[in-house]
């Protein structure tokens, strides 16, 4: 017997494994608990530290006697800066993770991700266009609505990118995954070239704004921006309820999904609009944050399985946990400065992505 053959014999075989999934309610409750814990930790850490003991008073749960002079400062920090930022991080994480899970279901590929295939870049390019042109004489009439224009531009950019990708990858009702991914890379390159051109044209302030989009940051999160994300996230999560069964059946292929009663074209349209809306809004709030959409659904599939009925809500929760954690790190590890969150997610996500690729080739065991 050769050395390779004996090594193969010692390797545990998949055939002998039996899998039982943990109960859905238990998974969701655990994730909710972890999210609450992550949020509490995030509340206490930052440039102005708020110890756990002062947190209830700062949150207004009770009034201290005698009044701690630091409480009013804590309250200001928490309610004006930290809570909207944590809420925005949680919701953006949910949007990115759920849009990744939907895109992977739609294209039957665990490597599909809005950031990887240029949907985020398309959104960032559209946002950069809005930054540069609404600030010039060309867009003078639109300047008054810049706050609304940026999210809208990012959404339209993401939608346009997704539609173009879909049109390129789809021939005679069949979607070619290889063409989709390659076209996504090409579109991301075009969008990045466009952003480069806009950087060249931009003045100093515009340049800073564009850099914000490219590296991703939640430092600009406010209650007003949080109020924009919340309804989109709520609507998207409700809409997800209608597509979970279709996404499960789409895993069998478009023909099998049709044979099983799925209106495949309608499902694709809904999924594309959802992915574009969620990515667009996320990009408009915090710029391009990559790899959350790949890492979160993949980790969850290992534990709870690929059924979208549980995968989508669980992705929303784990995405929130991941981004709250990443944002806490981003604003503390180089304090008083802030590290762009996109750097952190890429630093963790890219090696994870490579490990997934290697694992698929059977080179390493993850």
């Amino acid at each position, binding site marked *: 017997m050769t050395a390779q053959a004996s090594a193969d014999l010692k390797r545990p075989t*998949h*055939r002998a*494994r*039996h*899998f*039982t999934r943990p109960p859905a309610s238990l998974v969701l409750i655990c994730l909710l608990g972890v999210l609450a814990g992550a949020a509490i930790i995030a509340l206490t850490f930052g440039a102005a530290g708020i110890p756990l003991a002062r947190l209830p008073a700062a949150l207004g749960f009770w009034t201290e006697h005698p009044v701690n002079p630091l409480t009013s400062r804590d309250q200001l920090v928490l309610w004006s800066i930290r809570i909207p930022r944590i809420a925005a991080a949680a919701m953006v994480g949910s949007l990115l993770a759920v849009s990744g899970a939907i895109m992977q279901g739609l294209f*039957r*590929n*665990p490597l599909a991700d809005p950031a990887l295939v240029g949907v985020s870049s398309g959104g960032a390019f559209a946002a950069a266009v809005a930054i540069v042109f609404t600030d010039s004489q060309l867009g003078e009439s639109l300047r008054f609505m810049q706050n609304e224009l940026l999210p809208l531009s990012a959404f339209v950019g993401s939608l346009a990118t997704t539609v173009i990708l879909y049109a390129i990858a789809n021939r005679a009702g069949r979607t070619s995954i290889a063409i989709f991914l390659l076209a996504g890379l090409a579109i991301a390159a075009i969008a990045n070239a466009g952003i480069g051109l806009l950087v060249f044209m931009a003045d100093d302030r515009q340049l800073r704004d564009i850099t914000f989009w490219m590296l991703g940051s939640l430092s600009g999160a406010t209650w007003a921006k949080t109020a924009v994300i919340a309804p989109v996230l709520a609507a998207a999560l409700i809409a997800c309820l209608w597509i979970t*069964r279709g996404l*499960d*059946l789409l*895993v*069998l*292929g478009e*023909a*099998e999904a*049709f*044979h*099983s*009663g*799925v*209106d*495949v074209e309608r499902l694709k349209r809904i999924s594309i609009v959802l992915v574009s809306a969620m990515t667009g809004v996320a990009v408009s709030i915090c710029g391009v944050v990559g790899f959350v959409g790949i890492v979160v659904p993949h980790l969850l*599939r290992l534990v709870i*399985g*690929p*059924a979208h009925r549980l995968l989508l809500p669980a992705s929303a929760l784990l995405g929130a946990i991941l981004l709250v954690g990443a944002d806490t790190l981003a604003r503390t590890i180089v304090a008083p400065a802030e590290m762009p969150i996109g750097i952190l997610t890429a630093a963790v996500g890219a090696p994870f992505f490579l490990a997934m690729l290697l694992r698929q080739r059977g080179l390493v065991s993850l």
Partner: protein
Amino acid sequence: MAIGGVTLVDGIDLSVSGGEMIAIVGPNGAGKSTLLRLLSGDISAASGDIRLKQRDLRAYSSRQLALHRAMLSQHVSVTFPFTVEEIVHMGAGDQGRAAAEPLVEAALDEAGLSDFRHRKLPTLSGGEQQRAHFARVLVQLACGEAIHGPGLLLLDEPTSSLDLRHQIDLVETARRRAAKGTAVVAILHDLNLAVRFADRIVVLHRGRKVADDVPAKTVTDDLIRKVFEIEARVQRHSDGTPLLLPQLMTAIEARFPETSCAETERSEPWSSSGT
């Protein structure tokens, strides 16, 4: 039905009654899978019409259609690690998990997969995966039949990855469904299997129907020669059932004489005028 200017199936007139099991046979590229896709509503015919329970197939929504017919495709690949049980449950459509449980149990049992229910589908062999998808289709059929009565079961080469035992099991299961009123149409490559289980055998050749009759009348030396280009001596059981033995088959020599490379280049056989 034509794709890219090539006619795949043409002038086929076929009717299937409830309780009947039909085997579609023919050489590669004869249009068998295209015909099944037409019958499933997956693709539409350029001309002519297809009716299911007296109603034009195009008038059904995909959801309604799934309650009247179930189809097992030739190849189904699953990227994500669903377990066998989850795959079979997918056949139950909108039915609640509890309501579908007895149907799923029965289908797993019929497909011989009860012990495999918690295994991840991508880790199973090709034959085991094919049986899991067959079980899923059985659940879909049972769910539809519970509402609308006997339906249509379409099987595209359902035995292609199965061993002998499971080939027989699968076709016997389909036969049992037919006995309960389901109309079954299956593409089969094994003529002996088709002869044993089918009420009628439909033979396709170059997109056209060349025979449609009971097995004893369909499977003849002459038909095998014309359609499959095989010299065969069809044996007969005492009851007249045909039997094909590989030992009694010989491929007919290539119709085109072999030519040298130079001759091939000169004659340009792939140009549109040359073929």
